[in-house]
């Protein structure tokens, strides 16, 4: 089968609509993953065993099971209990929840890496707990986390095609519908691959720059 440039160009506007949904899902999913991950991390650090143990199990369970099945779970089960979500919202919740379990690990490591002396010194100069977090712990803990968090956001971006399985009309689903309609798979499928490479290869270099800027190993 020969590559047909005319057909490839004809598919671009439709694929473009898919790209918009893909970007939407990635942005919303990242916001959710970054916020929820912090909540999970704090719950896991909790002194109360009744909070930290179940959280830890929940995180491990989500990390050990496929995102696709979790998406099905959200998409097919929530309507049964009376919660009607649009496919995109279900997808964003699925992506956000799945990657929150990864970002939680980043937050936890970042916070645990702050030397004990910093906490003790804060106490010694009589800072309150919010002051300690705001002025001492977070300013030191956040920069080393940035490359790792960015890494997971890029990973999430690459996983967005899974949303097509729950009927979200993102890039992959648009490509499939064009392919099925014209019975030509070569161009749309290849263009999807090219699109992801076009974004993720430059992002590797962007990540490396982030690492050089923030990671303690490079200093």
């Amino acid at each position: 089968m020969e590559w047909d440039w005319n057909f490839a160009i004809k598919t671009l506007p439709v694929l473009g609509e898919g790209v918009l949904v893909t970007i939407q899902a990635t942005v919303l999913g990242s916001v959710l993953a970054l916020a929820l991950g912090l909540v999970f991390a704090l719950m896991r650090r909790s002194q109360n065993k009744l909070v930290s143990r179940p959280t830890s199990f929940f995180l491990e369970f989500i990390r050990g099971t496929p995102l696709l099945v979790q998406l099905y779970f959200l998409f097919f089960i929530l309507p049964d209990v009376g919660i009607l979500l649009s496919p995109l919202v279900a997808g964003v919740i699925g992506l956000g929840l799945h990657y929150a379990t990864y970002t939680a690990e980043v937050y936890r490591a970042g916070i645990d890496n702050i030397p004990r002396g910093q906490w003790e010194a804060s106490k010694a100069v009589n800072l309150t707990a919010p002051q300690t977090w705001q002025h001492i712990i977070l300013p030191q803990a956040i920069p080393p986390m940035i490359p790792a968090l960015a890494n997971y956001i890029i990973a999430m971006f690459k996983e967005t095609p899974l949303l097509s399985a729950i009927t979200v009309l993102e890039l992959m689903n648009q490509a499939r519908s064009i392919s099925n309609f014209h019975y030509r798979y070569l161009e749309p499928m290849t263009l999807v691959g090219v699109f992801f490479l076009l974004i993720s290869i430059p992002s590797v270099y962007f990540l490396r720059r982030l690492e050089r800027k923030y990671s303690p190993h490079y200093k």
Partner: protein
Amino acid sequence: MQHWFGYLQLIFEGALLTAQLTVLGCALALFMAIIAGLARMSKVKAISIAATCYIEFFRGTSIFVQLFWAYFVLPLVGIPVSPFLAGVLALGLNVGAYGAEVVRGAVQSIDKGQSEAALALNLTPYQRMRHVILPQAFVIMLPTFGNNAIELLKGTAVVSLISLADMTFQSQVVRAQTGSTAIPFLTILILYFMMAMVISRGIRALERHLSDGLDVTK
């Protein structure tokens, strides 16, 4: 109650396929990881560039995109692939690309003195790699390889979308036939989790076994 037994059997058949895909995918991934990881460090420019292209290409897109490409496009250009083969190839090549970076990192972390000592003992480059560097580096790679294997296990769910009857596919069949959503999905979530536990426990045991007599792990 009787009919649930039949459905459970369906899911177990799917679990078997999931396990097969995971094992074969991991074997291919391990092979690719070692080849590409070592090739990337080669002094011959052409080899290291080829390895870099492989790694960046497969890390740049997801298993899903690669699987669909392999399944729909390869037959069109005259390479017939069964869904199962497409699945193993996409999983193995994708995870192998991640593993290659792990291999490179681990090999580079081995103390230079080891290489120099092997050189002083007149070992050939192959012997140096095979008997001195890799046995030490492998222990460092293992924990990350374990995580990669779990990622591969999770990736197998995607093959259900190209009509392979794995665990996820069978749970959809059960859902369609019974109208029950919670039971089939919860069952396979638990099964996936148990498989992931088996992998992580197995890797930890292997790690303890292999690090005997080595001082690379603290």
